[in-house]
């Protein structure tokens, strides 16, 4: 059996974990996903266009995701909160803010000018 000091440390660690778990929405089942389609200015899907998702609420990997041939993307995010979906392709780039509160949010982007 551990010493009282060790026990307190362990209990504190558990409490800290629980506190952060609550703060980050831990306990909900399933991943949270932002998905959508990037469209060109002519309305056609933008295949192989790059997008990035950033957030003031979470560290986000500095990845660029490239859409599939249907212009679609899907990005699992770490938890509920605010995110910005932005195209890296296009001039100007397309950008949308989204507050994620449910399992899946659809965020489409529309580029203003022809590629």
């Amino acid at each position: 059996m551990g010493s009282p000091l060790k026990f307190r440390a362990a209990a504190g660690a558990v409490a800290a974990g629980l506190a952060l778990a609550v703060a980050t929405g831990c306990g909900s089942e399933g991943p949270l996903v932002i998905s959508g389609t990037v469209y060109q200015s002519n309305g056609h899907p933008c295949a192989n266009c790059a997008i990035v998702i950033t957030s003031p609420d979470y560290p986000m990997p500095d990845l660029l995701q490239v859409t599939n041939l249907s212009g679609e993307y899907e990005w699992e995010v770490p938890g509920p909160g605010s995110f910005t979906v932005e195209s890296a392709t296009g001039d100007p780039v397309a950008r949308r803010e989204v507050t994620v509160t449910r399992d899946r949010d659809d965020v489409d982007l529309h580029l203003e000018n022809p590629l």
Partner: protein
Amino acid sequence: MIERSRCRLGSFLVGASLVAVAALPFAAPASAEGNPLAGADVTVGPDGTLQVIGAAFDPATLQRSALPRTQASSAGTLDIDDLVGGSGPGELTQAELDALVDSLPADQVPPQASSRAVIGPDGRVQISNVTDSPFIQTPFLVLQEPGSTGGYICTGWLFSDYSLATAAHCLYGDNGWRTGIRAYFGFSGTTYVATCTANLAYISQEWINTRAVEQDWGVVQLNCNAGAVLGSFGWRTATDTPGAFAVTGYPGDKHSLTAGYTMWSHSGTITAHSDYNWKYQIDTAGGQSGAPVWRQEAAPCGNCVVGIHTYGGFPDPTSNGGTRLHPAVRSALTLFSSWVVP
């Protein structure tokens, strides 16, 4: 799809402070069955979008001994071996290529045993001389998502004759191993001087299990000797306050329809967030995951890497961060440095 709790990020941040993560076992090296990283042929079109130009990748073809040293040049790509041999269809003339190779150090240092990721004013500068060392050793990486025609863009850095390092989240994601990787060296816009694909990849089992930021690193064995020809970065451990370093890579927010994807760099002071991660106010953006945290030093380290860039807004919204070369990373770098393609 791997089912994970939505609390994982918070959980592994807690884990970072509560658990001393020692050198962890690696995920099994990529094999023909488990990790088909040698991918379809992907290139960058004139408008900056990515185009799959080869047939879908067949995992059955991933036998190390069966992989050709030189990839087919049907798509007009210039392979490393072409670079050495001197007949590739690249954007540069042969004389320029020869001059490039001659200009690289013959004894390039051998490896030793987003919140918004732009913080305040954008301090990044474009690297125009992408064919100079060490920028030519910092490839633009294109990876494909399994079961999809989409993919990802990251940055890497050569650390040995056949191997590069990058972020684990570039190599392995929610759908498992990314099924293709192609490294473009000397890349700017739509031109590059060499390209090759991956034979094998290695990441921490801990990353697969928990996505722990401490284990967000990966190494890739290429099917070509890019490092032998173009040179490679040195690397070393560092104290908790090692001073100023740069992060150099391919930020997506700098993409333009006219210039395509280009290389950018920014320097700043790095400090330890933990034994496993750096934090810094160096500006970065999506596309720079896997980029070297480096600076030029005297021999033996030379162009010396002390970390791998991974996150924007880490460990807080006003910082960016990366993975330190902790013991598990160093072990992998050392192991892969000793490997060559048969």
